[in-house]
């Protein structure tokens, strides 16, 4: 009974309901503007809500979080500029749809699927949080490393043209991610003795440059071309569409929850992995992936919103943040006099149920705001390009600056913007670059941790992989994906009865 009361706190108190609504609304816009991040918004809210009670403060933050994760898809679809890292995959098929004048439909599907994914995430949080957090804790450095390798193999899916160019782009991304002082030993890497480079290159700056500025530079060629008129009928997807994608959305939500619950990985990796998964498993898409396939929207959008619920799992059960936003929320709980940690669930279970309730409410608001404001949003793309392009550039500059309050990030952003323009022009895919930057530290740090733990002994390392069921599963996943991507696949198929494929390391 107490549980039910706590769960319904938000709905029964108009003030809290309003705050969740306002938060979600603001979140959608914060998420949509590249460079304004949920992390930033939530950390500002800590000071802003300092003198408030804990419930209103948390309501507002939960709203912003839910709305922000969803909001990134808006600009990804409309402008081909992901508003947030977790919307990178959404741009792949969302933007082609907008170019056909189907932006309304794309946003409609995205919204419905984000809602669905969010719901799955919250459901798992509510009924299986301790179970999932136990599982997440079991990930050892070598498992994180294998996960990163699995992620890097997505390069194949993100490179529609030449795989070799994709490999180059992915490797470039990993190298960019390694710039600066290594966080584990403080050794300088690729700093060329410039102290400016010590802090490394912000990954958001690279993303904004590569997607924002380079897109704007390319659009310069089309200033005179009239913009595509958007049809905004059929925004709410039919039941048939939803039902058709139900199995896929359940699977991609699962990916989202698990990746979200792992400390150190979040919605960005989850959505890319889900996109890749969809591309692999969808037998006959109505349209090709990269050309406006509905599945290419469904998978990443369910996954990144499911990751929200996932990120709360370790936070609520163990006091361990699932991502950057939950890290700040832990700080907020602390400032409001609570003790976020494993005992929170025991001492104050009502806090847990309150957050679950707030998440459900925010999710519903997201559906509401997502399906209503579309007309206004599509107006953005219909703006004259002569105004839109300079504005995109200015927003990119401000956004890159805002990440770390550093002018250096602005230079990098512009540099990568111009470089990205040439990469695109010569057919190098940009997705893998961003993927590489995202995964760089996950791969590097955990590889080193894993091999140090085994005293630099490769043999002991492989022994460890084989003897742990989790690592073994991940390893098999890596091998399977790798083989299926190369010509070895057809070769292995012919040998299928014995299932022995010549394997080379990567």
């Amino acid at each position, binding site marked *: 009974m107490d549980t039910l009361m706590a769960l319904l706190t938000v709905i029964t108190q108009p003030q809290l309901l309003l705050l969740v609504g306002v938060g979600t609304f603001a979140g959608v816009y914060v998420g949509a503007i590249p460079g*304004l991040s949920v992390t*930033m*918004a939530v950390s*500002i809210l800590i000071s802003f809500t300092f003198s408030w009670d804990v419930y209103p403060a948390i309501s507002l933050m939960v709203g912003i979080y839910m709305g922000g994760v969803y909001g990134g898809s808006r600009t990804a679809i409309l402008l081909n500029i992901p508003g947030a890292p977790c919307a990178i995959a959404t741009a*792949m098929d969302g*933007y*082609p749809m907008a170019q056909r004048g189907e932006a309304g439909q794309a946003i409609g599907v995205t919204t419905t699927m984000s809602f669905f994914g969010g719901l799955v995430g919250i459901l798992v949080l509510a009924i299986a949080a301790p179970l999932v957090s136990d599982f997440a804790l079991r990930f050892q450095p070598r498992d994180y490393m294998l996960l990163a390798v699995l992620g890097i193999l997505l390069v194949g899916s*993100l490179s*529609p*043209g*030449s795989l*070799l*160019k994709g490999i*180059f782009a992915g*490797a*470039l991304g*990993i*190298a960019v991610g*390694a710039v600066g002082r*290594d966080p*584990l*030993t403080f*050794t300088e*890497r690729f700093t060329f003795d410039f102290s400016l480079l010590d802090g490394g290159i912000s990954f958001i700056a690279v993303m904004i440059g590569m997607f924002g500025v380079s897109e704007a*530079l*390319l*659009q*310069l*060629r*089309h200033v005179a071309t009239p913009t595509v008129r958007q049809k905004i009928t059929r925004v709410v997807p039919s039941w048939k569409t939803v039902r058709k994608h139900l199995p896929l959305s359940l699977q991609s939500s699962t990916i989202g929850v698990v990746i979200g619950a792992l400390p150190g990985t979040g919605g960005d990796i989850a959505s890319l992995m889900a996109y890749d998964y969809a591309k692999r498993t969808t037998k006959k898409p109505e349209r090709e992936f*990269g050309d406006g396939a509905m599945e290419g929207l469904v998978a990443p959008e369910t996954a990144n919103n499911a990751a929200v619920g996932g990120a709360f799992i370790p936070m609520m059960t163990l006091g361990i943040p699932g991502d950057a936003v939950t890290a700040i929320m832990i700080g907020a709980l602390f400032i409001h006099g609570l003790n976020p940690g494993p005992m929170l669930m025991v001492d104050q279970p009502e806090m847990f149920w309150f957050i679950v309730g707030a998440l459900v409410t925010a999710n519903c608001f997201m559906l509401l705001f997502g399906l209503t404001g579309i007309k206004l949003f599509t107006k953005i793309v219909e703006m*004259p*390009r*002569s*105004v839109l392009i*300079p*504005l995109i*550039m*200015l927003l990119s500059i*401000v956004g890159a*600056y*805002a990440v770390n*309050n550093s002018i250096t990030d*602005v*230079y990098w952003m*512009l540099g990568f913007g*111009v470089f990205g*323009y040439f990469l*695109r*022009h*010569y*057919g190098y*895919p*940009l*997705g893998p670059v961003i993927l590489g930057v995202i995964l760089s530290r996950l791969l*590097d740090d955990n*590889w*080193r941790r894993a091999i*140090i733990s085994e005293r630099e002994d*490769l043999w002991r390392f492989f022994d460890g992989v084989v003897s742990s069921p989790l690592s073994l599963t991940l390893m098999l996943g890596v091998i399977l994906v790798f083989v299926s991507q190369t010509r070895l696949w057809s070769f292995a198929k012919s040998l299928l009865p014995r299932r022995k494929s010549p394997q080379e390391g990567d």
Partner: protein
Amino acid sequence: MKDNEPDSCTDSAVPANGINSARKPGELVFTAFLCIASVYLLWEAYGIAGFEALSSPGAVPMATTAAMAISSVILLVRAIRLPRARAGVIAESVVPGVFVVFVLLLLAFSVLLKPLGFVPTAALFLVVAIKILGRRSWGFTIVVSLASLLVIWLVFRVGFTVLMPPGIVPEAEFIQFLRNVFGGGRS
């Protein structure tokens, strides 16, 4: 080929096809540049810790820059083998005039940002850029630029307290002044 070339770059997030049957103008130079840069980075990565240990901070950088070097060398060889595309002038297809102008504008922006401050630099940038692209009247250009700059400034500076370089504009005093006017500050 040449006609649909620009579209293949812009129509989707990822260029539709990375494999081409003819070499694009400037492709050889670009690939050679990537190749040289990769090899240089590989050398630089080797310099981090050499072959000291599997767990050294240089291990992963060396592996990735090696991957970059190998793939770019193959790409260079492929590019050399491709027949040259029909006499394309670099200036036209790769770097059109308006592109050069905008790169210069962005460069000017980043140089002026610190000494001049965000608000004046951004205002100048928007006015010049919109004027060049839109060729509308000065009135339209200035009103649109300043209005959108004001919105951006309010969202980022006031809403999100992102402290852009103030330069010659006494922003902080100005905001404090506003605070005093509306509601008498924080106390």
